[in-house]
């Protein structure tokens, strides 16, 4: 996975994305035990061109030049199945902007904070997202104040109450 992350770092250094961060199940590995997952979710903050029309074409071309192959909605990139996900709302954008530096082997990368992972999973709201929240609450060191601020800022407090009321 180090080679994959190195290429994502190159993508950012080349200016094709403003910033990237690992999210989803893979990001959870940095805070809790490993669980089975098929892909690495790389959230990318795109630079908005003057035309206002955003496209992933230049990014895909850059990655294909480095050996990536397209597999349905994924990229097989240096031995890892990667899903590139443009930030799609204020929450995911904030999560990428406030992601923290981590190291895998010798390669630096960036990972969403655990409080943002919880908020995004809560907003997405599938059964597997709720399972991820439960795992993180059980095993990760969570800053309660930061989590509450994020939930408040993104209007997720009611969902949080309902989640906590579930049997």
């Amino acid at each position: 996975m180090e080679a994959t992350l190195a290429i994502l770092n190159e993508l950012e250094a080349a200016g094709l994305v403003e910033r990237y961060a690992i999210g989803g199940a893979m990001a959870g590995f940095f805070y809790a035990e490993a669980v089975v997952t098929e892909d690495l979710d790389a959230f990318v903050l795109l630079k908005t061109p003057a035309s206002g029309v955003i496209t992933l074409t230049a990014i895909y071309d850059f990655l294909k030049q480095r050996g990536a192959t397209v597999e349905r909605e994924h990229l097989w990139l240096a031995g890892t199945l990667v899903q590139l996900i443009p930030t799609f709302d204020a929450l995911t954008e904030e999560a990428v902007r406030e992601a923290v530096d981590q190291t895998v082997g010798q390669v630096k990368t960036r990972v969403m904070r655990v409080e943002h992972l919880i908020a995004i999973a809560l907003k997405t709201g599938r059964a597997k997202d709720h399972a991820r929240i439960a795992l993180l609450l059980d095993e990760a060191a969570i800053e309660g104040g930061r989590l509450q601020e994020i939930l408040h800022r993104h209007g997720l407090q009611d969902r949080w109450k309902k989640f906590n009321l579930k049997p």
Partner: protein
Amino acid sequence: MNASSPATIAGEIFQGKARSRKAAAALPIEEKLRRLVEMQRRANQIRRGVARPLMRVWELA
């Protein structure tokens, strides 16, 4: 072995599992990635058995 109630035995088992999960959570990321690849391989063994599409197994350097 000392005599215990089933509830006590089960409680000890669950405490052991919880300790195990905490230990797994504290492993270095590189070890977690090795475990992931092993889980992907095992998941595919099951998927083959039930004719579900296989997942791509990551290639760790």
